[in-house]
């Protein structure tokens, strides 16, 4: 049981790490709107190319 919990936590941490890092790199490389800190409240990015 202990091993299972350990494995689950390791999996969770590392998969989240991979997810956040790849998403960050992808967004940053895109530049402009995707890397903007306030883009969530902005509907421009959805409507304009």
């Amino acid at each position, binding site marked *: 049981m202990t091993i299972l919990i350990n494995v689950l936590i390791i999996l969770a941490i590392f998969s989240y790490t991979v997810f956040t890092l790849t998403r960050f790199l992808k967004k940053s490389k895109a530049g402009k709107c995707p*890397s903007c*800190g306030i883009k969530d409240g902005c509907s421009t990015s959805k409507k*304009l190319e």
Partner: protein
Amino acid sequence: MVNNYCILGNPNVGKTSLFNALTGTYEYVGNWSGVTVEKKVGRLKEQAGDLVDLPGIYELSPISKDETVVTDYLLNSEYSGMINIIDASQLKRNLQLTVQLMELGAPILIGLNMIDVAAKRGIHIDQDALLKKLKLPLLPIIARNGKGTHKLLEALKDQDLSNNRPLRINYGENVEATITQIVTLLKQYSDFEPRQFRFIAIQYLLDNPKVIELLNDDLISRLTPLHKQLTASLTTTIREHIQTKRNGYIEDLLQDTVVYPNEERQYFSSRLDKLLTHKILGIPIFLGIMWLIFQITFTWVGTPISDQIDEFIGGTLTYSVKSAMEAIGLFPFLQDLITDGIIAGVGAVIVFVPQILVLFFFISLLEDSGYMARIAVLMDRIMEVFGLSGKSFIPMIIGFGCNVPSIMAARSIESEKERLTTIIIAPFMSCSARLPVYALFVGVFFAHNQALVVLSLYVLGIIVALATSVVLTKTVLKNDDSVFIVELPTYRLPSIKTLWRSTWEKGKGFVKKAGTFIFGGSVVIWLLNYTGPSGFNVDVNDSFLHVIGSFFAILVAPLGFGTWQAGATLIPGFLAKEVIVSSMAIIYASDESGLVNIIQNQFTPLSAYAFMIFILLYIPCLSTVATIRKETYSMKWTLLAVAYPLVAAYVLSFIFYQVGHLFI
């Protein structure tokens, strides 16, 4: 069919505030010109349709890049109506654009904004009389707090909106005769709608390049002689002539409808301006205000709260998590990862949230009160010496929050060379991500002069930026003269709602980043610290991070901070500057003596300041570099934007440390 509306108006009349109030979304709002640089689309409340927020313009003839967006939209898009928002306290200037829009003849509704500001300044507007004279729907609103916007939304749905006819101002015998001739030619040789003929003719006479683009060569060759003939027959230029006639029309509109106050009351603002934009005192006052803000941020409010959070994360939280993990029976390596990696790394950034929120609160306050626009005017005089104009200063100020939007904001600069120069120098503005580094080091080494030291770094960033612009404008980017015209906004007490939103929007990104990228980054850095060529759980001196850090340490040794730990933070710092502090916390977390003590042993005040100079200048972060690439469309400029700061950072830190070393 979906109804499309657009918001138009002069710069800084509250278009974006109205956009937010009508659509319920949030866009960056500031009290100066040029905040909106490209059109934004939002969905209107009550399913009334879509709303497009366009950049502010004074004239329909475009001069700068963002102004072409407006003319292009008006001439080439389909829309059900325009909302022309005008500043009630500056009616005369605002109506210049309104007249041009009325000549276009598209359905239009006027939003009379800032009636509260006008009333406070003692300007009395007889709205009914003005409405009758304009023959257009006119609605009073206060966009900042959303008052009157509901009625405006209702009015948009009104069918009568579409019934207005193009405005006809009598431009005098000669001009009218030419317009008639042009209209006849347009009827024969173009496919514009008949109601647009007169508008196109007038805009053609005003040399509107967007209108000329729409005419075919054959037509232009027929129109050119008419244009020349009219120019010859007038004593002034066509533009001046038309302007005078329009002014006459506007004066007639305002007569009996607007009463201005006696002088004394009206000039409170300008008396304050005399002091705040004083030739000699202006800049020292600005620096004094900034010092006060940093003093509040670092000494009085921000740091004490940060210390509490730090104590909680380093103490209570870490111990509780540790005992919980032991109770569950987690592997020792996993326990280390969570406490020394994730909690230390993410926590190191989280503790600085109070400082960031406090600083942004005051920067938002300066923006929204109208003071920052004065600083832009003040800086215009100084920046002229450096080959730039005050227009470049606005993107630079935005850069204090984040460099990415600051580079986007450079679009409002009409001169391409000045825009490029601004893009290259904007990353020298100290963004919020660099703040944790300063906060950490000033707390340790300059506890009594925190505000002054941080202020010196911000000022250094501005000085390096200005010096760079001199180099650029004297060499590769010899500048065309560009004129900075900014209408000073009235001073106003910012609304708590705008302030809070503006502060939170900036701070939110920081917190979010801590939970995502900083989390991931911390795990990777911890792993690099935990593993080495010889396997897992190695001594820190045998770790991969040590190998990487040692390589950079040799390079930066002449700058005074040649430890592998400092060297190891530089690469993650390129991805995002916040990670510099996280990396340090993780590297030092395994050491019992604590982050502050180790920093004290490894740095001296001199090398700490050299390190802060290097971090301030060394390289824009990945997002900024990508944005520069997109905005310049050039690999050459992007490379310059990366290489130049690196060299500048190295040279300046080197000089500072080596010269300082002679005395200390």
